């Protein structure tokens, strides 16, 4: 694909923003992004702004009314937890096509107002005869099968949480900034067996925005101070994996296909060799381990070895989630994918103070949504 430049990033602190609503968060992220890009909001030609829950906002009005940004094309895209990165994908392709020169991709989510434990339930997505499963429940089913198939243990999962909390503790905008121990993870209350509280990503409020343009325009505006999106792959699978007989629960086909697509678009043959680090959708600890495999960082069944051997630690051979991941940074659904691309940009520009990956020139970001049904993978590098 035609490379697209990221020239500005804005991310609010993720967390429990009881005193703020989605308007406060989106205004903060968008103004931070346009200031970072040295452009003015009025120069933006089109916007893609994601929200997952309709309670956060629907339609282009979620952006227009918040920023009083009227009279221009705005699209609200929703695609489960991949909402954020899908908005980036649409915005990037619009810029790459030449239809617009300067656009914003943003995502915002206000989860705490829903007043529920875990994610608020979604009405009507399950068929009538089917039992309801919470998000951790969906991924716990993968964990139980992986335990059976590969002998992985709760300790393996706990190490993912420990690693990501270690990283997140060093990020000023992360939701949970506290290191934890394997013992603490194992002793935490159960959420969906075998996943305990610390196996689950944070339920957070937050917003993120990026300003996109083409590289030749980026140079004029910010000089060399930009990153490029080299690829965005995406795949949508079934939202009823439990009804598809071929589903192994040991791999998420949407990720496999989105990764292959992105690697091909970016000319990557071996991600361990051609890329320096990655940000994966660690909605749950088990998800991160399976993501290692699906992103082709190792063979099936070897995911746990990567965490045991420290390969994915921030100072390891291939750091994963140097920002703390969804686990510790927080997961305001639609904001997450946008934040990940902002984080990649910071890393490849060498601006990830305190959690900079050594020699980070190129990395990937990955979102996985629904019952492993929607995945997006973006490749971001120095120009």
């Amino acid at each position, binding site marked *: 694909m035609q490379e697209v430049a990221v020239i500005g990033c804005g991310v609010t602190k993720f967390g429990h923003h009881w005193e703020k609503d989605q308007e406060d968060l989106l205004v903060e992220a968008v103004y931070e992004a346009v200031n970072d890009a040295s452009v003015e909001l009025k120069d933006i030609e089109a916007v893609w702004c994601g929200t997952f829950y309709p309670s956060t906002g629907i339609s282009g009005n979620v952006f227009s009314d918040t920023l009083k940004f009227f009279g221009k094309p705005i699209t609200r895209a929703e695609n489960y937890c991949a909402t954020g990165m899908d908005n980036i994908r649409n915005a990037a392709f619009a810029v790459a096509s030449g239809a617009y020169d300067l656009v914003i991709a943003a995502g915002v989510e206000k989860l705490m107002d829903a007043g529920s434990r875990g994610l608020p339930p979604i009405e009507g997505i399950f068929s*009538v005869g089917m039992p309801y499963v919470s998000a951790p429940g969906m991924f716990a089913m993968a964990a139980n099968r992986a335990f059976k198939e590969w002998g992985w243990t709760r300790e393996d999962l706990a190490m993912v949480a420990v690693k990501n909390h270690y990283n997140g503790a060093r990020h000023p905008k992360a939701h949970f900034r506290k290191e934890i121990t394997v013992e603490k993870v194992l002793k935490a209350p159960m959420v969906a067996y075998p996943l305990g509280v610390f196996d689950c990503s944070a339920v957070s409020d937050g917003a993120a925005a990026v300003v996109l343009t083409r590289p030749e325009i980026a140079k004029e505006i910010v000089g060399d101070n930009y990153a490029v999106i080299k690829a965005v792959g995406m795949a949508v699978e079934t939202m009823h994996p439990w009804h598809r007989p071929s589903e192994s629960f040991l791999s998420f086909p949407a990720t496999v296909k989105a990764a292959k697509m992105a690697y091909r678009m970016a000319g990557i043959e071996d991600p361990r060799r051609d890329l320096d680090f990655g940000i994966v959708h660690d909605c749950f600890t088990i998800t991160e381990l399976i993501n290692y495999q699906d992103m082709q960082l190792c063979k099936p069944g070897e995911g746990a070895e990567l965490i045991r051997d420290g390969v994915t630690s921030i100072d390891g051979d291939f750091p994963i989630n140097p920002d703390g991941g969804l686990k510790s940074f927080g997961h305001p659904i639609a904001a997450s994918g946008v934040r990940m691309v902002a984080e990649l940009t910071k890393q490849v520009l060498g601006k990830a103070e305190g959690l900079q990956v050594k020699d980070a020139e190129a990395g990937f970001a990955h979102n996985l949504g629904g019952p492993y049904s929607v995945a997006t993978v973006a490749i971001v590098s120095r120009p």
Partner: protein
Amino acid sequence: MASISGCSVYLPVWKLKRDEISKETGMPSLGGERAVAHWDEDSLTMAVEAARSLEGNFDAVIFASTSPPFRIKQCASFVASALDLDSSVFTMDITDTMRAGTDALITANEFVDSGRFSRVLVVAADCIPAKPGTLYEQLYGDAAAAIVVEKDGGAKILGYSTSTMPLPGSWMLANDDTVRDYDMRVDARYGYATGIQQAAMPLFAKLGLSPADIDRIVASAPDPKSYEGLLKVVGARPEEFYFGNIGIAGTAHPLILLASQLEKTGRIILGGYGEGADVIAIEIEETQESNIGRMLENRKDISYGDYMFNRGFVGIRDAPDRPSLTKVWRDEKSIIRFYGMKCRNCGTVSYPISRCCIECGTKDDYEEVRLGDRGRIYTFTIDYLVMPGNYTGDGVHPHCVVVVDMDGGGRVLLEMTDVLRDFSGIECDVEVERTFRLLFEKNNFRYYGWKARLPR
């Protein structure tokens, strides 16, 4: 006259010690234990469970209960649908009286005897709601029994007769939540033995029989003492009454007694009591095995607190979904009849029925197939954010869901039922069987469907 060719009893997985009830409520204990339905069971689901183990087709279904879940809406049609019977099947409910079980048996006999129907399913079930701390809480038990009536069978119905006497008995007004508590001595003293005997006399005369020609007498009763009293009066030996391990199972009780009697040959009198009595003479020529022993064995003790949860007195239930009733009707074949599809292109069996195959996408080229009764757990979880039945989690009663590969193909996500907090035995690759249950209550409607349980 017709014959009885099959029988089946269903007991819920839970049993509650009456001493435990006594300890919690202060009511003197009647001893033994009573059968307790799981929270997702009612007389309709228990009826389906009892009838499911009977083989073959039926052209009529008669459902009997004093506790049908609907005041307007037939249960027999639900039963027929869950059993995947043809839409031409005749269905009817007989309700409101404890005598409904034997009334249904008599009706089935007439249907077959007249040649109108050839094979009739009689299924009686009760789950009578009783207030905590009342006598009825200890008296009643939740259970179901199904009987097959057709021309030929191992047990011949010789004849029947009835008596009618409107005594107070037990009752519920149209909008009552629980059964009314009243002095039962009037029934015991003037109603029960008298009613049975009044009904029996013309039957003996009609059949030319004397009490000496009868081998055994079983009859449902308002309480176990009344049954013993009756047998003392007529000079017969008391048979197993199942009060010590089930309780009085309402309309199902006489059919449970019948099912246990079918295990021995001989000539019996079967009585059903309620506002008078039905008396049926049956000649058992060939014994029929009943599943009551197995049902009694495969049960678990329940605490009084969990019994209160099952009864809806403890815990908050609020389903987040608002499923369309139109959709329930449209998808009946998958939801109630449990059909999946077999793709003619790739051969995949999948669930539910949908127009395009989940594996190869082939459009509109499949046959509808009913999925198996058993399967193996591919994977599972115990979800503490959701309560059984899609209700918002209380953290105490987690929601166990299993992905099951059904025998014969098809993979289905099912709620694991008959569990409250003990999930031992639920693992990958373990065998489960499906069971018909209440999924949840929403829109003031009860949504039914299939769940999984460890095989009983």
